[in-house]
């Protein structure tokens, strides 16, 4: 079957002969379409559970990526980590995941640490139009 539509090749690749994976974009394959992105800052008590709820109101279950940044942990860098996380450190333990229904995105985690301290976190999410449940 003949190919049709449009394609744009990467720098240095011949658009007429390059492989599909060497294209910047091609109408042959969809790309993920970002709809909503956002984030914030919050805390989680030692042994507690924190849930961040974000409404997407798409009416179906979309694909979502989320990240967590523990800012004052003894065992984690002050960096962003992609979810899910299930790490038992020397002092800090962090279990985190992201799940979605047809209305909301839920970023949820629990932590406990050797000092019984409340920890601080930044979080970030990207909600896409693409469906997670096909």
């Amino acid at each position, binding site marked *: 079957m003949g190919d049709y*539509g*449009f394609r*744009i090749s*990467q*720098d240095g690749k011949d658009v007429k002969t390059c492989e*599909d*994976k060497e*294209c*910047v*974009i*091609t*109408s042959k*394959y*969809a*790309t*993920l*379409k*970002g*709809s909503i*992105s956002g*984030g914030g800052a919050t805390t989680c008590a030692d042994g507690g*559970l924190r849930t961040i709820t974000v409404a997407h109101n798409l009416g*179906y*279950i979309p*694909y*979502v*990526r*989320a*990240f967590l*940044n523990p800012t004052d942990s003894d065992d*984690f*860098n*002050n*960096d*962003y*980590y*992609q*979810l*899910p*996380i*299930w*790490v038992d450190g020397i002092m800090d333990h962090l*279990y*985190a*995941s992201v*799940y*979605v*229904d047809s209305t909301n995105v839920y970023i*949820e*985690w*629990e932590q406990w640490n050797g000092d019984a301290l409340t920890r601080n976190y*930044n979080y*970030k999410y*990207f909600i896409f*139009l*693409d*469906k*997670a*449940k*096909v």
Partner: protein
Amino acid sequence: MAKDYGAAVSQKGYDVKTCADRFLVYSSAFSNLKIFNVQEVSTTIPYDVGVGFQDFTVATNDVWTSAGHGLNNGDKIRISAESLTGGAGLNDHDIYYVRDKTTNTFKVSLTNGGTVVNVTSAGDGYWESAPSRITITHNLGYYAPFFVIHTGTSGIGRDHSYFFTDSAGYPLDLYGSNIRQYENKLEIDIPLTLDQYFDDGEPVNRSGETVYLTVIQFLDDFSTISARNINTGTTSGSSSTDYGIRISKAGYDVKTCTDEQCVFSSSFFNQIVHMKGSTTGDTVSHSLSYIPNFLTYTNFSGDDYIYYEVYPSVDSSIIDFTGMGADYTKYYIIFKDKMN
């Protein structure tokens, strides 16, 4: 600063000539992740055929000895990860069918009732109930990024989806080496229990239930694309009117289809690839001066598959793999999207 050429489309409300790279829907200067295939797969959560992990020895006559094993012919087991010592001819990846069982011994085959697996050196280890295994053959011929999203079971219901797991990492355990991307196929091992830690707080054995997964397979590989910045400006505008470009999927009217039915649309942001590649080092510099969205997979030396890796972290200058070691090859994609 590098010169741009070719084509570029900005997000709605952003000046295509002056906006920062990360506000582009696409540009011929940067790649995008292309979706090769999206499919729903399902399988039955297995039943436990033993009691946790049980030790065994194996001899060169192919006989496994495991006192009081309780197995029946046809049961499926596997060798627990990294527990095998010796036992040439066996590995901790294959799923074995029990055959020729006695009270304390048995042999194994790769198919039910098939030829006995030949063991060429004595060994020992631990065996466990085999997971249910889903195999998706894509025949791409290289490692490619992928996502696995758990969308419920016949017992839990299907109102939620979970990215690479169903909870904080308790079994189902859909990340790590339970999901292996080979050059031509993706394998997903479904273990016995399905924890509903955040739903009801109690781990629940859901053997016999059907578990559903959405698998997103991308076309792109991890060949190196070096970091490149065309425009770091922030000039932007705002507009509620849709304009720009949209391309519908095959079979959908581009004027009337939903946005979700588009291959892409300038109404929505895109995960433009800033750089990608692989390394055995501890860090990779991204030169964005902000914290970007990223995606990582990993491969342990000698393994012929990669798996989703949650260990690395990212800040405004590097993606940090410190602690993983040089035995791991780290595959990364860094996007233009900004986190902070």
